Every structure is written in C-alpha cells, then in structure tokens.
C-alpha cells in the first residue's frame, strides 16, 4: 500500500520506538502535523520556541539514553534549532531533528521561509540529510537514528521538502542499514587491553578520570568495579558527574576550573591517569603543559579523534567504554596483589588533600547562600534520586559542587557549549521521559529569562517540573570574572531589572513563591517538593557570591583561587 511521506515518517518513527516528539508546526511541515493529529501512538509536546524543542529533546535523551526527536518547520524555525543542535553535538547527545523545507523545485530560489539548513548545520551535526524523493524517506530515517545513537552519539538533522511529505511511495521499513563510510568500533584491541591492564596493575598512584562517555556507554558499574577492586581514586568531569557515587570514599568530586582541591592535586601527583570517555577539555586541563606532569596517560574512548587531540596519550584504546572494561576487568584476577596495602601511601596523600581546602562557603545566618540551598536540597531529596537539570552560569557550578550525585543520568548539564536557557526546557524533556521521577531545574535569573516562555509548555503538557531560580540579580558568572579580572567593572551584567518571577509564574497558573532568608529555605524547599504540579521558587541569594575554587583561564589547575 502506498503512503504519503508524512505518514511514512510517522510509521518509521514508531518502528524506531519513538513515543514523544517536541516541536512547533508551520507551513512547510503542516502535512506531517496533519498526520500526527490523526494518530495516537506518538505523543506531541508543543513547546513555545524551537530552541525549547531541541533542548527538551536533549533532556529526554540525556535522562534516558534514548534518541530525542523534534519537528519544526523551515526557515526561521529551522535556524532556531541550531543552538540546541550544536549543544547536542558538543555533549554527544543523540537527537534527530526533522525540519520542514520548501518544495524541491523551489530549493535554491530564496523561496519564502527557505533556509539552507543542511548547509547551516553541517559543522554542528554528526550528519544531516536532505531527502529529495519520498522513496528514500524510510531508509533515511533508519540511517538518522542509527547514526545518532551509535558510536559517539550526536545530533542528526533530516530536512523534509514539502513535496516529499505529500508524495506517495510504498512503505517498507528496512530491518537494518549499513553505511560504508560509518563503522563505529565497539570492541577495543585485545592486545592493547591486556597491556593497559598491566600498566594499571603496576601503577603506584593511579587516578581515574571519568567523563560523560561513561554515562552514554552505561559503563558506570564497570568503572565502579575497577575503582573498588584496585582502590583507585576517581574524579569526574562536569559531564561525568553521576557516573561514580560522590558519597564513596574514593570519590574526589569534579576536577578542573571549578573542581575540588583534592581532585586537582591528585592530577598533579598521580603517576597514571586513566581517562575513560572524557576528552581533555580545557576546562578540565587548565594549562596543558602543566597538566598531570608526572603521569602516563591511558585513554579509553569510542572516538579515535578524541585521542591525543589535546594531550599526548601513551596508551590509547579505541572502543566503547563498557565493552572495553568488561574485557579488561577479568584480567586483574591474574594479579595476586593486596591492592589496599599497595594503595595506602597514595590514598593517604589524597586523604590529606581531602581535609585541606574543602568546598566551603561563609554563612551569615540571614542572607541565603546558594551553596546552602543546594546542600539542603540534597538532604531533602537524597532518597528519591531526582533528576537535577542545571542551566548555565554560577548556579551550574554550585550544583556540580554542592549537590551530591550518586547515580548516572541524574545530573543534566550543558557542558560543552553552555547555552543559557538550556535548563528549563531540558527539564521538561526529562520529565516527559520520566513521568514518575522528581525533576528539578536549578537555574539563574539570567538563564531563566532565556526560556521562561516554556512555562506554558509545563502547564499545557502537565509537566510537574520544579524550578529553583538562584536569583542574584546578575549575569553572575560574567560578573565574577569582571570582579576578579576586570577591576569590578560590571559592564552589562547587572540584571536587577527583571520580572517578578512569582507573579509571572502565577499568571500561567503555576505555584510560585519567593525565599529571602536562610531560615525559610528548608521549609520552602519542602513546600516545593510537595507541589503536585510545576512550581517556581525565586530564591534571592547573596548577590556577589563567587564560585570557588577557581583556576583562572589558561593557568595550571593547581593555581586555585580558594574561598
């Protein structure tokens, strides 16, 4: 039986197991929306901007590992997705974005709402497609999902001209695809795995460097086993938070620019750095020539191009972290060593750093300190493992530092691109995927103003996301740099002219209230957590609080400004 392209698209998505789609309609994708209206298996969540749709698709993907999907129209809608797509690219998040396009015979004519979106997104997608014939549509969808979700995951865009949506073709969904230029490696080289196992077993002061790749590959259990078995301390990147329980005695927390003293000192002194699913980002390494000066480096990563990109790696293994570790772990049984005893001196050094320069802040008993809010929030929610979604700025770093994460996919943060406005829509997407979980967006007054139009989405789609605005009346992270490095010239960072967030949320019919004193924080958070629907809490925090420790950009990571 012949189906039109719009229907073929939806049928294909169902075969891929898609349940939810985020987006906004328009003329060039109206036929797809018409088919969407006629069916019940795919649930559509209408966002209020297309960047909200892509961020929501990312929140969906980041919280589950499943591919997030968005539908938008051509031209301005397509260009509105570029930030979300770039964000997914930087953080290796699997999403597929379908954009409407003008009919094939008008492409290239500067038709109304035409944008060369495949051209625009070429550098920020893992791959993209312009479908020119309805006969190619089903196979293209199959390829798009395959590419987005395998290897190093990433965003794929599929551009759908209007005539491809209306033309008809036989629907045959391919069982599998093979793409001759795309063969992701999953299994590491066995000889190299054996060699690396020996190097790890022989190291005196090994250190695990755990990135987001451990979460996307689902290798957190294997990492835990490795660390515990050989008594190896662990630090994570921002993206790796949750891959190793921060409550464990081997956890050093996050390293890097705003990392812990103990993690950065451990990097400085280790003799073997074992990086798994991380990419030696400058926010972690600081000045490269001073990074891990005494260490040999092992790097396990699915992306060969990540290896030796920034730092020369001594022992590379290309492969999926989980597969590689599963093959490596049994090899340690050959060593009859008392790891606890061997590790004693190294763990003692670390213990000393742990007790120096702990993450700290100063309370005055009255003004609300953001760090206090996050510590309280952790105490109140630690048994329910909520999904905490950060936005971008100081509050993002405070979340990473002061909330304690113990499970993967419970900390969603835009690490690579850092687009303000990510948090709230991403939290909505995470809530769609996890209807029974508590989802909390920690945002800033600046970031929230970049996505607060999505309050309507929360109401309409009944998404009980909790929003905590850590409101300092500043674009705080930039203000902090101005204070420390630009003689306190607060150029363009004072945002004390702002809406009354409580009344704003109220106008959508959303529960909202304000907290202004430390003594009210605990009760306020409880009230928020008890809310059955969405809730917005405007927390007035001390305005000029800074994120410490801080390593100035370009300095060695041991040059830390401390509280």
């Amino acid at each position, binding site marked *: 039986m012949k189906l039109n392209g719009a229907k073929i698209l939806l049928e294909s998505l169902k075969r891929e197991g898609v349940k939810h789609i985020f987006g906004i309609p328009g003329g060039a994708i109206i036929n797809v929306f018409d088919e969407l209206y006629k069916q019940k298996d795919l649930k559509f969540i209408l966002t209020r901007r297309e960047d909200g749709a892509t961020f929501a698709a990312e929140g969906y993907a980041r919280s589950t590992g499943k591919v997030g999907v968005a539908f938008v129209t051509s031209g301005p809608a397509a260009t509105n997705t570029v930030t979300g797509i770039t964000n997914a690219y930087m953080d290796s998040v699997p999403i597929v974005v379908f954009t409407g396009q003008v009919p094939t015979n008008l492409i290239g004519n500067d038709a109304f709402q035409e944008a060369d979106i495949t051209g625009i997104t070429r550098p920020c997608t893992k*791959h993209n497609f312009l479908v020119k014939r309805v006969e190619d549509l089903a196979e293209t969808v199959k390829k798009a999902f395959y590419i987005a979700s395998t290897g190093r995951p990433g965003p794929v865009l599929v551009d759908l001209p209007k005539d491809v949506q209306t033309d008809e073709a036989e629907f045959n969904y391919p069982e599998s695809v093979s793409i001759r230029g795309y063969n992701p490696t999953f299994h590491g080289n066995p000889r190299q795995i054996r060699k690396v196992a020996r190097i790890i077993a022989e190291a005196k002061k090994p250190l695990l460097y755990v990135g987001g790749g451990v979460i996307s590959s689902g290798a957190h259990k294997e990492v835990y086993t490795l660390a515990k078995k050989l008594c190896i301390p662990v630090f994570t990147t921002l993206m790796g938070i949750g891959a190793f329980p921060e409550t464990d005695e081997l956890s050093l927390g996050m390293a890097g620019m705003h990392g812990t003293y103990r993690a950065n000192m451990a990097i400085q002194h280790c003799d073997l750095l074992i990086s798994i699913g991380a990419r030696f980002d400058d926010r972690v390494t600081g000045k490269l020539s001073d990074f891990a000066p005494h260490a040999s480096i092992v790097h396990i990563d699915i992306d060969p191009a990540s290896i030796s990109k920034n730092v020369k790696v001594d022992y590379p293994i290309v492969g999926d972290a989980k597969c590689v570790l599963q093959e490596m772990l049994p090899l340690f049984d050959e060593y009859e060593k008392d790891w606890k005893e061997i590790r004693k001196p190294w763990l003692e050094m670390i213990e000393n750093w742990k007790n120096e320069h702990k993450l700290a802040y100063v309370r005055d008993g009255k003004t609300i300190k953001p760090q206090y809010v996050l510590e309280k929030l952790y105490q109140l929610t630690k048994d329910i493992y909520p999904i905490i979604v950060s936005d971008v700025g100081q509050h993002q770093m405070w979340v990473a530092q002061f909330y304690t994460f113990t499970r993967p996919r419970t900390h969603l943060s835009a690490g690579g691109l850092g687009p303000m406005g990510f948090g709230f829509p991403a939290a909505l997407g995470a809530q769609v995927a996890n209807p029974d979980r508590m989802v909390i967006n920690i945002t800033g007054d600046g970031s929230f103003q970049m996505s607060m139009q999505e309050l309507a989405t929360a109401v309409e789609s009944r998404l009980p996301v909790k929003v905590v605005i850590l409101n300092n009346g500043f674009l705080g992270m930039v203000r902090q740099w101005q204070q420390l490095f630009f003689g306190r010239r607060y150029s363009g960072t004072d945002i004390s002219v702002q809406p009354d967030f409580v009344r704003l949320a109220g106008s959508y019919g959303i529960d909202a209230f304000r907290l202004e004193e430390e003594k009210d924080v605990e009760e306020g958070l409880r009230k928020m957590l008890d809310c059955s629907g969405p809730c917005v809490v405007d927390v007035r925090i001390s305005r000029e609080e800074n994120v410490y420790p801080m390593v100035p950009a370009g300095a060695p990571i041991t040059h830390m400004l401390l509280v």
Partner: protein
Amino acid sequence: MEYIVSLLVENKAGVLCRIANLFSGRGYNIEMLNVAPTMDPSLSRMTIVTSGDERVLEQINKQLNKLIDVVKVVEYRGRPYVEREMALIKMHTDASTRAEVLRIVDIFRANVVSVARDSYVIEVTGDSGKINAILNLLEPLGIKELARTGKVAMTRGG
C-alpha cells in the same frame, strides 16, 4: 610538513562542502585539492594536499575518517608512492621567444597543445619539483595564464 591524503568519498552533493568545512572549522589549510569520480561512479577520489605538524596531521586524518560520507582515507606518509600533477601554461610568444619556449618544452617532455598567432598553450605533467622548475624557466619569457590540477597520488606495488 607537506601531507598528501587521498579520500574515497560518496559521489553526491554536499560532500566536498563537508570536507572543506572540516578543514576551515578546525583551522587547517587546504593547499591543493583534486576531485573526480572513480571506476565506481558512486565514489569519488579526492586528493588533498595540506600541511601541519605530526599532531595536526593525525587529527586531520581522524576527523576525515569520522565523516559519514568518507569511505576510506589513504595516507602516503612512510609508504612508497608516486605523485603527479598537470599544468596548462599559456605563454605569450613572439619571434624572439618562440624557439626558446619550444626548447624548454622539449627538455621537460612537455607538449604544446594549442598554437595561436601570439601564444602557445603548454601541457606539462610531473611531480611538483618538475612543474615548479619549468615554471621558473618559462616565467621570464612571459606566462599569461596558469592552471594546475593539484596533485594526484597512488601507492606503488600491490
């Protein structure tokens, strides 16, 4: 360091753009570029001449391999290979220079492929050293136009 890399790529729209994007986005320079279909019409061979230190070259290689439309990356470093380039050179000629131009053409085993009243078009094939050498000699005699194909390369033996 000069570096020649040859790619087998899908022969379809936008592929050249992806590769050019990769070079410009990551700050690498393309010094020469040559593209044409292979015996299998669904594939093109692309030969790119670029430069950089060891680390940059390794990255270029890996990043190219990551592109879905790149089916194979062949690099020639450390392997015996032949490279050739062709140039078409339009020479301004008159009675005083014609003989000298023809002598040079002869020495380099080049060909005159078009003759007009006041110009020749010369075709020369060889490695870059040879092309540069003939250009050096012809230049004082009046080169009007130059078109070079960029290098193509192939490994020697099986």
